[in-house]
Every structure is written in structure tokens, then in C-alpha cells.
């Protein structure tokens, strides 16, 4: 950075500093995948001093990739006009006017920097402070003379005319919405431009406290209603920036800093302006059609944990365990993006057959093969494969982004395919969703699939009704969950999860026997043992493998050795399904009785209820506190499973 060696203009050259400041900065930047904005700015200045305008311009644009610091954005935006001419001219251009309800002197040039970073040549116009209404109302204003393609209405909640507590909130919100939509209409009719409206961030200080949410007339409640109203009324030519979400993202204590308002009528804290500028630019870019269309994904350690070619289907982490859950969350986020129209492609260094195994065989994969438009697995150089994917899909390289856990592959793509944006994943998969979500060019202007949208609405309405009914009593609640279980003998794919449950389950565990993986394998091989797991899913979630039962045949008796359930599915009657299955197994083997033991532990004694509520009879109470129970299948019949539908594997 600049303090590595201060500017040579004012101080004599120090021969001890053998490295020029630019070289030192470049060396530092080479070690970083995502150099901070200040470093990019310093490097740009270094190249400018050497008269290398083009390289300076390229580094200057990279300032916009990091929204954490204000200073490089301010300086970079100010420097941009003097170097932008030496960069290759982009194919697209836009005239952007910003009309603010607060001081926008810092924001406007920053929007220019961000839009240019997204590959759009930009002309800017800044309206005078809080003259948004006048400039739109006066047909002869400088705003109309500028002839914008886009007008950004940079508004803040202080500019609304909503009072602290309104007697007729509905009318007040309607009137306020009309004020803003009238401005949209003027811009549309007189300038023929598209509108980018900043929605209102709600202040963090709530005069009515938590009561405020129950008061439709409280100002904050009305601001939320106003945002919703404006979102409803925005037509195709109105793009919205959800400032309430952005403020929450940086933290409202950082978004609102009243010193700036009191000193300079600046409603958004300076530290939050880079984010606001970049998000505004992303929405404009989406409007121009520059959003990315396809995410090219690596597989090993990107979609799942581990290496499929080495670890095999049952060795990779997906779905179960902390890392498995993190990868699953990332897969689900990808599916959410897919639902907005973004294509998913795969580019993996793997044997083609291996690469497909998890999709075909692993029960916990959320992304399926038919979610993927182009599946490339092999040993070719990734930049070549990505070129092929783009060609096959008929997309430009600049429509693609690349997601890979390997810094080596990322560097190869950055170097050889500068048009492809590369997402830098953190080493912890729990951070994958955020890393991708913070990439700005996945905005879509609207969801085009109206039909699907409508179906979703109907489904939601139907669900709301079920929700209402579900709270009346427990049986209704259980039925409403629409629980579906798979109960099957323990197989290779699930044995490690089963072993994990046996090792860790404390709360709902009849005997708390900690069998080792070896013992489990022996039981599986022995015809004396009945063994099965249960996987449960319901309307809301797929819980995966959550229960294990082990029982040993002994003449006419089936003796329950282990019966346990994960704490996340306690209280849903899954235990009935397990016992019901045990009854069937007993009859199949010619056993007439179930026998079970309950060994109390220091943990909560939930499991004891199991025997009592399902008709077992107490046989003996032992000295160690354990109890033995007995159920006569032949006489008492099958234990009923009322609420869980059993599905075939």
C-alpha cells in the first residue's frame, strides 16, 4: 500500500528501499486473490505516474470489486474520468441521472465507477440537492436537457411525509406512494427513461419499541407498507433497490450515521455508499441485460465435501454432518438462483462416470442432473472446457461466472478468460452461500415464468389454510406435517451416518449402547440380527437419516438392543413407525414377542414413554435402575403407525 513507500515527489529517494512503490504494491497484490480497493487504487496511481494509462485504468476499475472501504471508491471515482478514455470502449453505454433527496456528491461518481466496472460506458448527471420534484416537474429543467436513459431516485426515509403516528395510515401510505409514482410517471412520459427507485431503509431507533409492529399508523410500520406498495406498483420500467435489505446487511448502525446528516445532509453513512453504488449499478446493468446467465460449477469440494474419485459416494460430505449441511445449503441456494432463470453448468476434473455417481446414487443431493444444462467431466484444461460450454450453450463468455474451490483453477480462468467473472470461495463451505450471494451481477429484473409464479401462489394459499388448521390439536398437527419415512436395512451408503447417530444420540436412546462400526458390520452380516434405519422428510424439510433400530432374534423373542432417534424428530410419532416395523419383522421371523430394556441415563428420560404409550408391559425393575418391558405381538397385534407414510426406498 502507499505507506510501504511514500510518494517520491516530496521525499528524496531512499536507496535502502530497493523496490519501487509500484513494484512493492504489485508484489503484494500478486499474493492476494481479491486485492483490497486501496491497493488497487495505489497501483493505478503508480501506473499513472509512469504514464501507463491503460494499465492504470484496468487497476482503477478493480477498486469497485471491494465495497469495504470508502476512500478508494471516492478517489477512484474522481480519478476515473481522466483515465477512462484510454480503456477499450465498451459495447454498451448509458446516460444516468441521479436525483437525490440528500447530498449525492459522493454517491454519483461512485455509481459511475461501478457501472463502468460492469462494462458500460456512462454519462452522469447529478440533480441539485433535494430538487428531485422540481427537476421532474419543470419540463425545461437541466434534467430533461440531459436526456437520461436511467434516472436513479436516491431517496431516504426522511424525505417521506409520513408523520410519527398516523390516524389513517392506509390513506397516508396511499398518498405517499402516489407522490413517488407520480414522479415515475413524469420521468416515463417526459424523458422516456427507466426509473431506478431506492426503496426506504427504516431507521433502527423505534420510538414505539416492539409495540410499533402492531401499530399500522406508526411511522416505521408505514415505511414498510410504503416499500411494499411501491414494489407492487412498479411496472417493467421501474427497477427497485432494496435499501432496507442493504442497510440490514451492513448493519443499520453503519448505514445511519446522523453526524453526516447534521453536518452535510448526507442520509447514508459514507462507509455504506460503495455498497449502495455497486448495487444500484448492478440493477442498471440487469436492466441493460448484462446480468450473468450461467454459473459454471466445480464438483469436488464445491458441490460436496471430499473427492468422489477417492472417497466414493458414501465417503463424500453432503447432507449429513456440519460440512455436509453446508454443502447442501449451497446446493439449495444454487437451485434458488436457477429458479430465477440462471443456468447451472458443471466443469469438473474427474472421471466422467465418477462425477455422475453422487447425482445418481447419493440420497442427499439437492442439485440433480436435470438441473444442469451442460455437464463436463474429464481431465481437460478448465478454461478450454469453459469455452466449449459457452459455445454449446450459445452464450458469450461474459455471460458466465465460475465457481471453484481451487485457487489454482480460479487463477487459470482469470488469466485466460478475463471475461468470465470468478467467485472467490472461502475455505469454509459454510461461507459459500454468502460469497456467491454477494456477487452483484446475478440480479434479474423480473421473473419471466408467470405460470410457475402463479402455481406457487396457489400452493402458498393452500398451505396457509393447512397452517391454520394445524394448530388446533396434535393429531391434526401430525397429519398436516405430511411425514414420509423410508425404513430399510442399513446399507453401505448410510452406515457411517448410522454409526454417528449411535455414537452421539443421548436424549432419545433406549439403551445408549455405543456400538462400534465393526460391531455394526458384524450385526449386518449375522442373520440373527434385525437392523434398520429410518429417514424422514415432511412438508418443510428433509431430515435425512434420523433413527436406528437394532434387535436380536432369540427363539420366539425379538430383543430390542438399540432404538434411538435424533432429537430433531422427537415428538412426531416416528417411534410408532419404528415399533410397527419391528412387529412386522418379528412376525416374519416367526417371533411372537418383542422385548425391550430401558436404561435411564443422566439425560432426559423421554424414551421411557415409548413402552408405556405403546402397550408394553413392565416385566421387571432391576437394581441398576433399568426396566424390562414386554409386548406380545401375537396377542396384542401390530403396533399402529398412524401419522407417518412409509415409502419404498
Amino acid at each position, binding site marked *: *500500500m*502507499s*505507506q510501504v513507500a*511514500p*510518494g517520491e*515527489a*516530496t521525499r528524496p529517494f531512499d536507496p535502502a528501499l530497493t523496490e519501487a512503490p509500484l513494484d512493492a504494491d504489485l508484489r503484494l497484490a500478486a499474493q492476494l486473490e481479491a486485492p*483490497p480497493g*486501496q491497493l488497487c*487504487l495505489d497501483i493505478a*496511481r503508480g501506473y*499513472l*505516474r509512469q504514464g501507463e494509462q491503460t494499465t492504470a485504468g484496468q487497476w482503477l476499475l478493480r477498486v469497485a470489486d471491494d465495497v469495504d*472501504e*470508502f*476512500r*478508494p471508491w*471516492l*478517489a477512484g471515482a*474522481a*480519478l476515473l474520468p481522466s483515465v477512462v478514455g484510454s480503456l477499450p470502449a465498451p459495447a454498451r453505454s448509458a446516460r444516468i441521472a441521479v436525483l437525490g433527496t440528500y*447530498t449525492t*456528491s*459522493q454517491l454519483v461518481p461512485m455509481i459511475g465507477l461501478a457501472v463502468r466496472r460492469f462494462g458500460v460506458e456512462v454519462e452522469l448527471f447529478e440533480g441539485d440537492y433535494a430538487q428531485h420534484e422540481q427537476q421532474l416537474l419543470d419540463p425545461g429543467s437541466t434534467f430533461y436537457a440531459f436526456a437520461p436513459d436511467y434516472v436513479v431516485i436516491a431517496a431516504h426515509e426522511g424525505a417521506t411525509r409520513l408523520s410519527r403516528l398516523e390516524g389513517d395510515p392506509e390513506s397516508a401510505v396511499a398518498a405517499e406512494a402516489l407522490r413517488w409514482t407520480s414522479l415515475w410517471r413524469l420521468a416515463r412520459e417526459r424523458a422516456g427513461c427507466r426509473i431506478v427507485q431506492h426503496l426506504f431503509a427504516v431507521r433502527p431507533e423505534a420510538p414505539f419499541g416492539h409495540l410499533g409492529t402492531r401499530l399500522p399508523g406508526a411511522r416505521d410500520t408505514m415505511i414498510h407498507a410504503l416499500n411494499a406498495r411501491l414494489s407492487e406498483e412498479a411496472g417493467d420500467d421501474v427497477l427497485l433497490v432494496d435499501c432496507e435489505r442493504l442497510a440490514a446487511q451492513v448493519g443499520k448502525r453503519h448505514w445511519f450515521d446522523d*453526524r*453526516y446528516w*447534521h*453536518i*452535510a445532509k*448526507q442520509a447514508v453513512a*459514507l*462507509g455504506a455508499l460503495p455498497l449502495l453504488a455497486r448495487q444500484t449499478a448492478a440493477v442498471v446493468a440487469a436492466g441493460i441485460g448484462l446480468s450473468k446467465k450461467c454459473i459454471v460449477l466445480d464438483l469436488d469440494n464445491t458441490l460436496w465435501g471430499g473427492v468422489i474419485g477417492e472417497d466414493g459416494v458414501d465417503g463424500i460430505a453432503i447432507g449429513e454432518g456440519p460440512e455436509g449441511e453446508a454443502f447442501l445449503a449451497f446446493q439449495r441456494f444454487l437451485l434458488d438462483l436457477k429458479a430465477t432463470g440462471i443456468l447451472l453448468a458443471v466443469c469438473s476434473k474427474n472421471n466422467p462416470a465418477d462425477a455422475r455417481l453422487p447425482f445418481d446414487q447419493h440420497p442427499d443431493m439437492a442439485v440433480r442432473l436435470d438441473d444442469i444444462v451442460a455437464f463436463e467431466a474429464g481431465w481437460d484444461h478448465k478454461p478450454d472446457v469453459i469455452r466449449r460450454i459457452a459455445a454449446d450453450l450459445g452464450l458469450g463468455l461474459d455471460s458466465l461466472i465460475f465457481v471453484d474451490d481451487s485457487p489454482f483453477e480460479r487463477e487459470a480462468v482469470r488469466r485466460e478468460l478475463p471475461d468470465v467473472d470468478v467467485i472467490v470461495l472461502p475455505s469454509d463451505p459454510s461461507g459459500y452461500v454468502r460469497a456467491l450471494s454477494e456477487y452483484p451481477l446475478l440480479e434479474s429484473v423480473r421473473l419471466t415464468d408467470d405460470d410457475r409464479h402463479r402455481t406457487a401462489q396457489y400452493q402458498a394459499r393452500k398451505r396457509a389454510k393447512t397452517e391454520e388448521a394445524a394448530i388446533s390439536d396434535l393429531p391434526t398437527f401430525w397429519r398436516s406435517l405430511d411425514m414420509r419415512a423410508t425404513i430399510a436395512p442399513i446399507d453401505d451408503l448410510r452406515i457411517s451416518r448410522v454409526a454417528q447417530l449411535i455414537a452421539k444420540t443421548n436424549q432419545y436412546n433406549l439403551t445408549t449402547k455405543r456400538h462400534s462400526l465393526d460391531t455394526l458390520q458384524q450385526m449386518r452380516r449375522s442373520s440373527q440380527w434385525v437392523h434398520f434405519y429410518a429417514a424422514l422428510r415432511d412438508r418443510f424439510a428433509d431430515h435425512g437419516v434420523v433413527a436406528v433400530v437394532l434387535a436380536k432374534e432369540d427363539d420366539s423373542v425379538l430383543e430390542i438392543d438399540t432404538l434411538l432417534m435424533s432429537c430433531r424428530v422427537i415428538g412426531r410419532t416416528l417411534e410408532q413407525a419404528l415399533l410397527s416395523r419391528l412387529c412386522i419383522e418379528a412376525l416374519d421371523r416367526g417371533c411372537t414377542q418383542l422385548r425391550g430394556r430401558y436404561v435411564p441415563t443422566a439425560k432426559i428420560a423421554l424414551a421411557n414413554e415409548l413402552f408405556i404409550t405403546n402397550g408394553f408391559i413392565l416385566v421387571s425393575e432391576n437394581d441398576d435402575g433399568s426396566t424390562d418391558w414386554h409386548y406380545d405381538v401375537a396377542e396384542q397385534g401390530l403396533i399402529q403407525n398412524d401419522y407417518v407414510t412409509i415409502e419404498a426406498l
Partner: protein
Amino acid sequence: MIIDELEDIFRDVLNDDRLSLTGDTIQAELPGWDSLAQVNALFAVEERFGVRFSTREFQRIRTIGDLAQSLTAKGVTASRPTA
């Protein structure tokens, strides 16, 4: 030295790569150091040193010496390496 750091910051904020500062540099005499630049510069200083100026300080700081003094009072001693 704090003054070197401040010089870097003012070069960025005022977009002048050749700018040179001393403790005696007065706001009124430095081209571009207007009220808007004052807000920008003081925030850039806050960001760099992790300090916070009061509304009053925003108005009272008029020279680089004032600024350096205020930083010293806030416990900023000398140049720290950036992250």
C-alpha cells in the same frame, strides 16, 4: 508519522497525487479542501485509524495540525501497518 498518513489520505480525497502537507496546512489555503472534502477526509481518517470524530470536531478541525492533535488525543500514536 501521522502526517505522512494524512498526506496519503488527502491526496486520495482531494485527488491530487502531488499534494504535500505540513502541520501548518490550513483548510482555507488548500485548494479543494471545502466543507464536502472535510467530511470525506475526516471519514477517511476514521476509516484508516478506527477513530470517531464528534460533530463539533468536524467543525473545529481547520488545520492538519488540529487533525493530528485530535488523533493523538484519541490515542493514535504513529503509523500502523494497514491490514
